[in-house]
């Protein structure tokens, strides 16, 4: 596996003083869907914009080992705002893209438009949001790129089209491509991602393979009373969330599971991505 995107100590502070990204490191490996998961305002879009060179930043970013400008012809991008040229029809858009990009596959574009049920001779200006999104995605997927970057791509799509899109993105991985995918929708990420980086308040607070979360983590529900009684040091856990009279602890330490499993009041559960994400984000302030 080669490294497709390398981000080292990325920092982004906007002119209004907002520190959107606070020194993150990110490594996107070849032929994987790497998901940036995080709530709104976590810094996902700023990270993507930095990678694409849309905004100035501090730190070092390499794509395919080079400066982004040297490899733009190998990249396809779907932004958060999926606005295309409204005065064009999809047919004319395909013609335009064919002229603009050498790696644009017009046959594939027509196929995708048919797949998404998009009329090819109507002006884009008359399309609904979902249709505009489908069109933008079709044009981006029809580009034979090596790296696809999607920023919240399913916004505005109905559940069926959303599912279809996720299938199409997975197909790109089978074809040997790489995908960087940002979203705040957990089931979507759970379905598509191979590798997940969870962002919150400008930091990456977890990075790892999706399957590792189920295999390596457990949630421990410890009643507050018991916690005080046996003197659990919550600082030693991956994340801590205090609920009504219960402390929820996220742990990847087998020894901790074993030592606490003897207490009948302590419940130890397998964790899915949603619980993992919620505990991590909601417990963030307690941990960091």
């Amino acid at each position, binding site marked *: 596996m080669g490294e497709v995107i390398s981000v080292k100590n990325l920092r982004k502070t906007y002119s209004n003083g907002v520190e959107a990204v606070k020194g993150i490191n990110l490594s996107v490996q070849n032929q994987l869907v790497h998901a940036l998961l995080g709530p709104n305002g976590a810094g996902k879009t700023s990270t993507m914009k930095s990678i694409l060179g849309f905004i100035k930043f501090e730190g070092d970013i390499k794509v395919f080992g080079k400066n982004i400008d040297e490899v*733009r012809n190998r990249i396809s991008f779907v932004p958060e705002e999926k606005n295309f040229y409204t005065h064009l029809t999809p047919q004319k858009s395909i013609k335009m893209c064919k002229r603009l990009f050498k790696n644009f596959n017009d046959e594939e574009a027509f196929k995708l438009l048919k797949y998404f049920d998009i009329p090819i001779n109507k002006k884009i200006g008359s399309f609904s949001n979902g249709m505009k999104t489908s069109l933008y995605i079709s044009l981006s997927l029809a580009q034979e790129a090596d790296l696809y970057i999607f920023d919240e791509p399913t916004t505005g799509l109905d559940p069926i089209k959303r599912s279809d899109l996720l299938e199409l993105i997975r197909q790109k991985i089978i074809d040997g491509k790489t995908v960087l995918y940002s979203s705040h929708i957990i089931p979507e990420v759970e379905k598509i991602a191979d590798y997940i980086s969870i962002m919150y308040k400008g930091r990456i607070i977890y990075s790892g393979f999706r399957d590792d979360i189920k295999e390596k983590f457990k949630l421990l529900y410890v009643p507050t009373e018991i916690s005080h009684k046996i003197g659990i040091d919550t600082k030693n856990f991956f994340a801590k969330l205090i609920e009504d009279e219960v402390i929820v602890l996220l742990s990847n330490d087998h020894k901790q599971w074993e030592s606490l499993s003897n207490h009948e009041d302590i419940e130890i559960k397998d964790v899915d991505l949603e619980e993992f994400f919620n505990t991590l984000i909601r417990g963030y302030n307690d941990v960091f």
Partner: protein
Amino acid sequence: MFFKELNDIKMRSIVILLLLLVSLAVTIALRPYTETMFSQMISEFEKLPKFMKKIIGSPEQLTRLKDDEYYLISQWHGKNLGQFLPLLSLLIAFPIFAKENEKKTIYFLLARKKRKFVFWVKFLTGLFVLLIMTGGLSTMGFVLMKILGYSVSLVHLLPCLISEMVGVTFFFSLFLLFSIISNDQVKPVIAGIVILIGLPLLSLIKSVSFLNPYPYILCVNVLDKGIDWPYTIVLASVSLLLIVSDYLVFKNREF
């Protein structure tokens, strides 16, 4: 990408071109009547109210309108085409970047193409269309009058062409800067209109009147003095500086 840009400008250019062609047709069609009209005015000049005298200028100028060459330069280049050129530059320039910024379609281009490429294709396509229109309309005045048998010579066409082309390049580069920095299409239009209205006002203050490039674009002194080379060089240099600024601002802009 050149064709994409051309397609974006196409509609605006055709509409403006048609309007200016109508204006040219009217200017030339009025030629046979102006002589009689102005002869009458000269004979009754002293009887005219003061404000009318101010508008018309001196009777000598009216007399010169008998000359076809003077008519072409003063009425077509000076009163019609020249007056429209800065507005034409604004209409071509303002949406080039601002529309893409406003609609966020700029991401589609910038993700896949280098900024340098995007800038130069957009800039050169806009300027190319503008110069073709300016050159075409400027020359057409001469050609049509010649075809209709008026006594016009090529001698003054080139100075007018140079003045108009340097002038539109200046205005285009200036208005493009507004287009680049703006996130919507309204601000560059307002800024452009302020400039278009503000520059002629500079003529009212003698010490800064040279900052108003209108007299230069309107070919006011072409018949008597030929082309104003120092002004041409200065305006071309300022335009060049503006083009470099346009590029640097676009290159460093955040999207």
